[in-house]
């Protein structure tokens, strides 16, 4: 039982981090009707900004994290929107999707050339201590990852539903034509969406890199798992992406512990196939009546 709790908690912890990236998928989907295939690299990159702050600029950790967040907002938020999304979007969704694929290769190879191909140790934000919780050995890092990620999701949901700006963003996502005739500043709301996505990716990066180490190729798995989490949960719903992320994290850890580690990587894909066959709109998704 205590082992089960341990496995469950660490599954929830990584799952919550996947959920952060998966929520970014759904936000960008709603704002730009596109799938960002560079999302995994968006989670890989901010860790390297922090490492640059730590090792090249010799900043303390907290300042390096701030530097990493600011750089992520600039590069993955503002520049991504201005340089990639805005020029491509008028040509339709498909060219933009291809462009994000190219961007993912560019980011991956760029980090490899610029920083190196070796996996880099990344400082843990919450230390390596464990606590004994009713017989179960629980890592403080796992608990804190889960708490931080859930708090951010709760904060984001609050912002989108309870503030006027958040509701304007929803209006742009749900019916941009109407948002325009009501005078909503669509460009600004779209920018906010991209900034939020960049911030979520940066946070996911800071939480997952102490576990997986910072490596140029981390985005490959992270992007795929987050994408699957978003689809499994329902692509157009934040709570769907959250559920999908947690589900994949927990199932992944449970299978690895109790069944086999060999098929670990295949599990999210099997889950994806089952969910798509059973509920094409995702666990919590609503039918959009729109085709990709």
């Amino acid at each position, binding site marked *: 039982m205590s082992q089960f709790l341990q496995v469950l908690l660490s599954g929830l912890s990584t799952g919550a981090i996947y959920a952060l990236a998966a929520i970014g998928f759904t936000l960008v989907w709603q704002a730009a009707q596109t799938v960002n295939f560079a999302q995994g690299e968006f989670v890989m990159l901010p860790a390297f900004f922090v490492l640059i702050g730590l090792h090249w600029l010799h900043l303390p950790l907290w300042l390096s994290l701030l530097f990493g967040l600011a750089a992520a907002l600039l590069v993955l938020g503002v520049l991504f929107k201005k340089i990639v999304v805005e020029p491509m979007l008028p040509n339709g969704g498909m060219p933009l999707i291809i462009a994000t694929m190219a961007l993912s290769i560019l980011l991956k190879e760029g980090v490899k050339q610029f920083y190196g191909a070796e996996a880099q140790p990344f400082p843990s934000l919450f230390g390596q201590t464990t606590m004994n919780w009713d017989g179960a050995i629980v890592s403080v890092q796992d608990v804190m990852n889960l708490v931080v990620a859930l708090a951010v999701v709760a904060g984001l949901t609050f912002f989108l539903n309870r503030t006027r700006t958040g509701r304007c963003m929803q*209006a742009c996502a749900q*019916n941009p034509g109407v948002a325009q005739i009501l*005078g*909503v*500043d669509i460009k600004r709301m779209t920018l906010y969406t991209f900034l939020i996505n960049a911030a979520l990716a940066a946070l996911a990066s800071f939480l997952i890199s102490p576990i997986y180490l910072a490596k140029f190729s981390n985005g490959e798995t992270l992007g795929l798992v987050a994408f699957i989490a978003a689809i499994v949960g329902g692509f157009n719903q934040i709570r769907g992406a959250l559920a999908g992320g947690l589900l994949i994290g927990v199932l992944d850890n449970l299978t690895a512990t109790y069944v086999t580690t060999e098929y670990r990587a295949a599990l999210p894909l099997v889950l994806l196939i089952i969910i798509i066959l059973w509920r094409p709109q995702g666990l919590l998704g609503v039918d959009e009546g729109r085709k990709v």
Partner: protein
Amino acid sequence: MLEVKDVHGGYGKITILNGVSFSIPRASITTVIGPNGAGKSTVFKAIFGLLNIHSGEIRLDGKAVTRFSPRQMIEAGVSYVPQGRNVIPQLSVWHNLELGGVTASDQAKVKARIEEVMVQFPMLRERQRQKAVSLSGGQQKQLEIARALILDPKLLLIDEPSIGLSPNLVQEVFLTLRRLRDKGVTVLMVEQNAKAALAMSDYGLVLELGQTRLHDRAAALLADPRVGRLFLGGAIEDEPAGAGAGAPS
């Protein structure tokens, strides 16, 4: 109060309006009629800044507003209710109304206006916490009209308000529009249900091929045999060919 002078325009390089001209007085209801593809909805988009205007001029209370953005038009006192479904489906009725005042700097005033508007539409007050998507088609249309009134517009552009509504609700919408006119609001409306709309309007405007064909008092248009033929699928320029003008439909 609204003057449209020789406006040419369209989407990209496609021209739809070929010289539309008309002017409408304050506190009046004008219905725009015409066959499909005549450019009725396009005129509204041109006025509201959603169209490329190639040439011509649009004036509101004497002030040139020709290439204003939708936001500038809202600030100038114009509200637009397009054809079809125009609610934000996953937001509540109250929050949809709130979005009608999104451009206002004084949000306390918007809240007060929402209360006032809900007095006119009691159905919306009862359902203010429901998601807009849960309303029926007619209720959604009422929500859209109510939302367009939040900023107290002086000109209301309303495109096909009767589509999808039961005859009772159409009468209700028309009554609402008349009440607004009596309060000094100018209403410009496109309506498929031309006879009923003209019957409650002050003026009528007939568009054909992106040009103004007729512009007169609504009663005069209703009595005009050319307009009668138009309703039956003919064209204004058709010469009456004996007794067979306009096949019964």
